[in-house]
């Protein structure tokens, strides 16, 4: 993409702010239009948190539970970040729980044969990238809708992991001394490393989505794929890169999940599909594409991730978990829909 840059009109024109003399009310309305969704999710997040603080103050006013959250939320939250971009682009990826396992197969095989943890981590990421490329090719070139294709690869990648490993587990105890272990699931200043990785993924994905040409293409692609193609965006390439981002992130999350419990199970990643998707949708990303924020997904992940322990701490039985999950999802996506109708 080497279009010559046109001379900037605004360099020639006097630097007047646009509009000028805009009333406060209109400013606030415009602010609401731009940020309504993010304000909504932030309010919902604070409300949920307040509800937990009121019902279980001794738990939610001490640091311990936050330390637990910081260790577990990243296990699905990290994938939710690139998944947000995929959904903004109007696509979907349901295969990442199995990519988490497939990446770990690569990790285990390399580590068992070389004892080299960083190399094993690198290979896991490569396997994740390959899985993403495979998804992308099936979707772009075979023309299978992403929803269907990634249901297929959800089974395919899990099956491949089981076949290669013969269904066996692996203990990863000997990795705990390595720097790679400390950098992924160790602690910094008493903060679990995986939480810092989650924040890192959030920042990188935010920049990519909002401040990079790639993200600009992602928004247009999800908004109107034909407009994107007619305006010269290489839509196939953008799609494939998106699935690679999810694949690599999923493999990384698979490594975190396994090192965190110091064992590999071929079932790693199972149970992460719905929390990650719920985080994206609770965060206000539109299932129709063209709209969505990383901030929303981050708070969505916190909300989804706090419910389980929050319910138990509040004195309810675990039987309430799914009921409250469902309520939180329905209430928050309804709020998003209403916000869209009023300000969108």
């Amino acid at each position: 993409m080497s279009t010559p840059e046109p001379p900037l009109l605004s360099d020639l024109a006097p630097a007047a702010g646009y509009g000028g003399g805009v009333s406060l009310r209109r400013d606030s309305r415009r602010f609401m239009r731009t940020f309504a969704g993010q304000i909504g999710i932030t309010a919902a997040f604070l409300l949920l948190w307040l509800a937990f603080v009121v019902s279980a103050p001794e738990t939610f006013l001490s640091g311990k539970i936050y330390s637990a959250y910081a260790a577990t939320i990243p296990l699905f939250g990290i994938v939710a970040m690139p998944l947000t971009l995929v959904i903004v682009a109007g696509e979907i990826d349901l295969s990442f729980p199995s990519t988490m396992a497939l990446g770990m197969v690569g990790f285990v095989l390399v580590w068992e044969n070389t004892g080299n943890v960083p190399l094993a981590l690198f290979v896991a990421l490569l396997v994740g990238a390959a899985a993403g490329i495979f998804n992308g090719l099936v979707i772009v070139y075979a023309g299978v809708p992403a929803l269907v294709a990634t249901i297929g690869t959800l089974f395919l990648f899990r099956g491949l992991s089981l076949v290669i490993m013969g269904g066996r587990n692996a203990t990863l105890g000997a990795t705990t001394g390595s720097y790679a272990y400390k950098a992924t699931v160790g602690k910094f200043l008493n903060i679990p490393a995986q939480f810092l990785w989650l924040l890192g993924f959030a920042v990188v994905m935010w920049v990519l989505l909002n401040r990079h040409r790639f993200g600009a293409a992602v928004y247009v692609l999800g908004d109107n794929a034909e407009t994107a193609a007619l305006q010269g965006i290489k839509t196939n390439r953008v799609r494939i890169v998106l699935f690679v981002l999810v694949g690599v992130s999923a493999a990384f999350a698979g490594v975190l999940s396994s090192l965190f419990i110091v064992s590999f199970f071929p079932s790693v990643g199972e149970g992460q599909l719905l929390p990650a998707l719920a985080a994206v949708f609770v965060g206000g990303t539109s299932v129709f594409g063209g709209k969505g924020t990383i901030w929303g997904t981050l708070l969505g992940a916190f909300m989804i991730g706090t419910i389980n322990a929050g319910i138990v701490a509040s004195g309810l039985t675990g039987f309430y978990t799914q009921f409250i999950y469902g309520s939180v999802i329905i209430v928050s996506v309804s709020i998003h829909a209403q916000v869209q109708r009023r300000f969108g």
Partner: protein
Amino acid sequence: MRGVSKKFAEMQALTNVDFSLGRNEIVGLIGDNGAGKSTLIKLICGYHQPDEGQVLFDGRPVKNLTVEGARQLGVEAVYQERALADLQTLWRNIFIGRELHTRGGFLRVGAMRRETAALMRESMGFTSTAVTPESFVKTFSGGEKQGIAIVRALYFDADIVILDEPAVGLSVKETDRLIAFVRSIKAAGKSAILIDHNIFHVYEVADRVVVLDRGTVAGQFRPKNRTVGELTEIMREIAETGKSSVADDEHVDIPETAEDAL
């Protein structure tokens, strides 16, 4: 373009079509639905490639034209309904696929906002302070969207602006504005191709009208030599018989010289 043909699966969209556009000329491309209008312009903007025949710019044949390549040759298409991304802001729409960016591909958001604000003041005629570069495109009317897309094309220094059915769904007042935009293309010394199935929208602004029917050129006429009524009659005859009993106007010149051939 010379002797261009294009087939989609079993459908012959264009058969041996010659079409030309002179410098600073506004050509109306008229034809019924399915006549091949859209295919023809998609060949010119590099979205499709012809099966047979050549596309020429300044008399030179261009092979394997892409959207990007056509843009570099100064071709900008404005597609009705598909020109803009509705859920995105105005400044993002102006720069779709051509964002101002740093070397790493990072967006120069401030510069794009300032540029958009300057364009709005100077070219789009937005005076209301309620409209800013941060306004979402879906809040604009159909006519405003067309205007935005045309201004965008001229901003990126298009020599040839292609308008695909620009008047569909516009109110009378908006159509007047659209015509003013097309005149501004002519006044800027640029060329345009106006696609429509309705002669009325084209009659006022076109220097020449090319009638396409079932994938072939059925006739070429000059509005200044004809009344709207005559042209409508000719159109009807072509729609029914596939050709016109009226001879083309003044052997409408297919430019062959290097300066003005497309």
